[in-house]
């Protein structure tokens, strides 16, 4: 068995997310690459939560519909996921609440016997799963010891009871890779930004960006960063710009509605040429929409947000490894060109968990704007050939540093004459050209699958995972632009050379990537769109792609 798929489900408040993480670590520790998808409605207790954990010897970024194991903490889990079960699916359930075929665990009895509190019930389920999957006890013990913060011994006792009661019905053979770090997309973005030199993270909570705020707040001492949660998103972005003015590498994070409130500050960043990194994690829109579900419908908004014209970088990583890398790049490019740099994520990426090779952590900080040579007077907007004026920060001897939201001259003083306005606009445009040039040095378009296939799946962001899987099955090419602005037209043209059928696969209703590519002369022949908040599953996508290929 090269692939294993486990679903654990229960009520919100049942700790499904952490139980899922433990299952993921078990599979990690028996040699698999991991992908975890967490599905939950917008409420705190009750409702139906579930996590799907997949292990594979290939690197993966999507679930598979059919399950090897279904771990049901309640009846609803069983009812909702019947469709995901085959006759081979091993069902493990809390026998106190559920009646089913498969193996029941008398959770209450175990807890009572062990004098353990109710929250340890999940350990029984996980212990049972381990046995059903034939995972050795010492793996369970090791994982529990590493990942259970409190009362690990008692949890182990509870788990062991279930372990001993169940049968190995669906043995999972060991995979070949050594355990590696598991990170959510948001964690990877956070670490990437830290690698890129992040000094201050400013954010107002908004799903699915909040877990990035929580992660960085939790780790702030460790990384020596400041984390600020202000009164609203308008304050967030203006604070980030104030910080950038003092030379601090700042970043903000939000989702669509919060980003709306940042657009005025974004335009200020463009005009004042203040470096800024923005994490925008998409969810289902419009408006409040589905806060805890995914979407890819804000690409054009992010591309054009803010009045007026100014260059911006947009990268849309497809998994945690890419997130780690590109977040550092974004931070660096913001500083190198004094432009806004976006890390465009989506709920699937932000809250999904992926295996990350630690070798992916490299120190990419380094890129920066030139610094002022110190000969007064200082011109904040010196009209140098590159368009990138040397920086100085307040407190620097003899520098009078004036940044300005108005049209301004080289010194940063407001002007209104046509000549200077044109001159400074061109200076900003030149930075854009330089950024385009710079990004040619990066692999802005990923190509995977069969590199010479004449049918290509055209995708961006987290749908990369599912596209890769389908491409492997059908022998297709996958073309995934990671850099979306400046648009990597030439790289993309190369990437699709020989493609006769370009199929855009997007989680929105209007095929936004396809529209963007069209503006650059690249036409998608077909579109497969999903806009109900759920990520594509390989099973469904497979059918749709096959239809297109007839």
């Amino acid at each position, binding site marked *: 068995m090269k692939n294993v798929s486990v679903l654990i489900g229960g009520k919100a408040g049942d700790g499904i997310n952490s139980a899922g993480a433990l299952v993921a670590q078990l599979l990690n520790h028996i040699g698999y690459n991991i992908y975890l998808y967490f599905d939950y409605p917008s409420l705190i207790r009750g409702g139906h939560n579930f996590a799907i954990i997949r292990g594979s010897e290939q690197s993966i970024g999507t679930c598979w519909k059919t399950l090897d194991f279904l771990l049901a903490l309640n009846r609803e889990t069983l009812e909702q996921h019947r469709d995901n079960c085959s006759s081979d699916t091993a069902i493990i359930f809390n026998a106190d609440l559920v009646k089913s075929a498969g193996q029941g665990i008398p959770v209450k009895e175990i807890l009572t016997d062990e004098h353990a509190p109710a929250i340890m019930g999940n350990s029984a389920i996980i212990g049972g799963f381990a046995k059903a999957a034939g995972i050795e006890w010492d793996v369970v013990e090791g994982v529990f010891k590493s990942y259970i913060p409190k009362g690990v011994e008692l949890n182990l006792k509870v788990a062991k009871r279930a372990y001993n009661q169940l049968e190995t019905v669906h043995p999972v053979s060991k995979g070949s890779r050594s355990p590696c*770090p598991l990170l959510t997309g948001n*964690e990877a973005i956070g670490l990437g930004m830290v690698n890129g030199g992040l000094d201050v993270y400013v954010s107002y909570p908004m799903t699915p960006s909040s877990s990035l705020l929580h992660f960085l707040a939790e780790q702030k001492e460790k990384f020596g960063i*400041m984390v600020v949660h*202000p009164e609203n998103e308008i304050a967030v972005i203006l604070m980030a710009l104030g910080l950038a003015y003092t030379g601090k590498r700042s970043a903000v994070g939000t989702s669509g509605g919060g980003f709306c409130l940042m657009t005025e500050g974004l335009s200020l960043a463009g005009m004042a040429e203040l470096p800024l990194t923005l994490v925008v994690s998409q969810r289902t829109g419009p408006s409040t929409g589905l806060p805890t579900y995914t979407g890819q419908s804000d690409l054009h908004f992010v591309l054009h947000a803010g009045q007026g014209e100014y260059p911006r970088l947009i990268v849309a990583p497809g998994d945690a490894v890419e997130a780690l890398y590109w977040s550092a790049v974004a931070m660096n490019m913001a500083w190198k060109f004094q432009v806004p740099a976006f890390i465009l994520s989506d709920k699937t990426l932000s809250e999904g968990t992926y295996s990350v090779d630690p070798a992916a952590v490299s120190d990419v900080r380094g890129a920066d704007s030139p610094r002022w040579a110190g000969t007064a007077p200082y011109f904040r907007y010196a009209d140098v050939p590159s368009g990138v004026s040397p920086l100085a920060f307040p407190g620097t001897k003899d520098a009078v540093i004036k940044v300005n939201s108005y049209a301004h001259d080289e010194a940063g003083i407001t002007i209104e004459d046509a000549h200077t306005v044109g001159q400074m606009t061109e200076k900003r445009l030149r930075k854009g050209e330089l950024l385009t040039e710079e990004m040619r040095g990066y692999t802005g378009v990923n190509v995977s699958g069969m590199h010479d296939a004449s049918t290509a799946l055209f995708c961006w962001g987290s749908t990369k995972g599912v596209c890769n899987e389908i491409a492997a099955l059908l022998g297709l090419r996958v073309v995934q632009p990671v850099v979306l602005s400046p648009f990597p037209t030439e790289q993309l043209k190369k990437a699709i050379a020989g493609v006769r059928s370009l199929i855009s696969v997007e989680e929105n209703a209007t095929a936004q990537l396809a529209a963007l590519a069209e503006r650059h002369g690249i036409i998608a022949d077909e579109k497969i769109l999903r806009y109900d908040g759920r990520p594509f599953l390989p099973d469904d996508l497979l059918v749709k792609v096959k239809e297109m290929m007839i």
Partner: protein
Amino acid sequence: MTGRQIITDAQNTWCPGCGNFSIQHTLKNILTEREEAGKSLDDVVLVSGIGCHAKIADYLNINSFYSIHGRTIPVATAIKLGNPRLTVICCSGDGDSYAEGLDHLIFAAKRNIDITVIIHDNRVYGLTTGQYTPTSPLGFKGKSTPSGTAEYPFNPVELMLASGASYVARGYTKNMNLLHNLISEGIAHRGFAFIDVLQICATFFPAADYYTPRVYELSDHDRTNFESACKKAREWDYNSDSPIALGTFFQRSLPCFDDTMTVHGIEPKDRQQAVRDLLLTRS
């Protein structure tokens, strides 16, 4: 830089008789004194919004962040967080910080961030040619309310007291001595300093004839007493006819946001190690 020319060469475009000249002049004097006292002007940052008042960012030859309408204060807050050694002064308008961006003003007070906020309170939107603001009197006939507003003004001094501001004062552009003292005190105050300046708008709200006979300087007032500060603050409600107190209503000492938020940065190489360590805990 020492002995610097404190006024830039930018052409001044305020109307003749505008009270903004007094504020600029006062700041200029304060900056000069600062320099004379051996403190560098390189460590001073001026943040402004958008409006007539905000043009002061062009006119004073010091570090400045000419921000956007209503957003002066979060920028100033962050500059102080980014570099606590800086002295941060905010010049903001009544449209700016009482209407468009009121929330930021209240949060700055609540946080006791060590910045000095000077509100050029001309009780009108000057630059957009004369609409009512939150401190315009009831019935004010501006361009957006030609038959008079339907709203009472609020009292910014009272609001700031209720928001936890640790230094609260009111000045007047026709009393430059006092203005000098208030702004100097505000800057010296460790914590959030708020100064509502009754600024004459010569064009759209030429209220000098109204103010001058009514203003008086607070004396015999215990600025550490919150209750009496409130009482004095309420004496004039920006609407009815009454004496108008000028001076410092309230001052107290509280922990500052910039202090409590301070972070100890770590070296780039230690950071990378920290990232690696973190990864270890996840595998």
